[in-house]
């Protein structure tokens, strides 16, 4: 005898395959979207970086208006850099007033030992490119902020009297340099002596900060006249050629974007470097900011580095 079949009520549910397909489709969509989101985030960081450089450019213009010349890049006695001189022109009048341009940067008021309370320890957003993940000097005796924005030192190595006019395909100097390569005599430049044209001469660009919070890596130590506060146009942006930095002032961090080797004090050079893919932002003397590709012609980049070289080379 057959018992009448009771129809099983099928529960409404998804099969495993249906679920897998849905998850796979969502996965593909996310995979498509994620690079776009990351690219948009990086684009936002890059425009923030452009904005920071623009602020530096306006500050330099105002300094020139007020003082009739650009600030000295760095002075060895007292040991200070352009950063302290720019403070009054970036709405940091308080920092500017509390600073004493006759005192070394490594003592109060700029560096208050074992603390970040010195003037150099005050974090200003315009010091930093949001794409870089380097850190401030926050441990040890000498604590200070690092910065990403460096002044243009052109085609001349930095250091003592032995500094050479390296790879001089161009004659001429950068807006920031030392007379006869002597640190005691920084070259004070007026816009009228930038004969290549303000829009054809770089004023500042980017560099990558050290990733060690100790006072052992001076890359990005923009308050320090012996730190890496300037960039050279000797090597192309983001060059794979190693920067030359005196040892003890940098530590190899294995970062392929920060190649460096120990060298003599008077042979220091460093390329413009950034975390933006494919190039660096750079500020020109007319306070305009442009993105320069890593593939910029080396001779054109060197020409951009000089203010009075008389080159006709185009950077495009």
């Amino acid at each position: 005898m057959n018992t009448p079949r009771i129809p099983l009520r099928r529960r409404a549910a998804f099969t495993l395959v249906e679920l897998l397909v849905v998850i796979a489709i969502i996965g593909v969509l996310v995979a498509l979207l994620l690079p776009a989101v990351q690219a948009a985030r990086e684009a936002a960081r890059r425009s923030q970086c452009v904005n920071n450089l623009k602020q530096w450019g306006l500050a330099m213009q105002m300094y020139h208006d007020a003082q009739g010349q650009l600030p000295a890049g760095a002075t060895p006695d007292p040991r200070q850099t352009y950063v302290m001189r720019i403070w009054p022109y970036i709405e940091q009048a308080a920092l500017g007033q509390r600073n004493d341009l006759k005192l070394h940067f490594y003592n109060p008021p700029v560096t208050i030992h074992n603390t970040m309370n010195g003037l150099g320890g005050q974090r200003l957003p315009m010091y930093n490119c949001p794409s870089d993940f380097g850190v401030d000097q926050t441990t040890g005796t000498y604590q200070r902020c690092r910065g990403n924005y460096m002044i243009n030192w052109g085609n001349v190595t930095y250091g003592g009297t032995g500094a050479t006019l390296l790879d001089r395909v161009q004659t001429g100097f950068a807006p920031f340099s030392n007379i006869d390569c002597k640190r005691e005599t920084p070259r004070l430049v007026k816009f009228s002596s930038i004969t290549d044209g303000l829009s054809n001469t770089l004023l500042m660009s980017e560099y990558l900060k050290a990733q060690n919070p100790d006072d052992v890596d001076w890359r990005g130590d923009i308050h320090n006249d012996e730190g890496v506060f300037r960039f050279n146009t000797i090597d192309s942006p983001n060059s794979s050629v190693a920067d030359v930095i005196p040892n003890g002032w940098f530590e190899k961090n294995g970062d392929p974007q920060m190649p460096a080797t120990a060298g003599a004090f008077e042979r220091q050079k460093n390329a413009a470097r950034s975390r933006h893919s494919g190039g660096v932002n750079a500020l020109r003397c007319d306070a305009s900011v442009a993105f320069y590709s890593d593939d910029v012609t080396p001779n054109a980049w060197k020409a951009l580095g000089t203010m009075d070289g008389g080159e006709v080379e185009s950077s495009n």
Partner: protein
Amino acid sequence: MSIVRSLYLIGLIAAFSCALGCSKQDPNRGQVTGLVEVDGQPAAEGAIAFTPIDGNSAASGGEIVNGRYTVAANIGPSKVAIRVPKTVGERKLYDTPDSPVRPIQEESLPSQYNDETTLTFDVKPGENEQNFSLKTK
């Protein structure tokens, strides 16, 4: 189940095409490898750079590790700059008695090998091999 298998296949194809895309080489560059010796000994560490003489294509650099280097350099006649640091002493980080001590390194090679280099090499497409035997004096 055919849907699962087709998904698996799509994944395989995607991985394969990625691998193909990544292996593409820049036709304007040649790979240069070799050994750098200083006074007959392999250079423990250092940096090497190939700078095209024409000034129109970018210089390329690489690290020297245990004497060996590998650089993907732009093709054409290039100047070669080599820097090999050597440890010459120690320095205190701070002027306090308990300061940590760090080694001091200096350039060991004369400037004829780096800043005013006389070394040249013609980078050809593909694989290149070039050894350098340098003297500190």
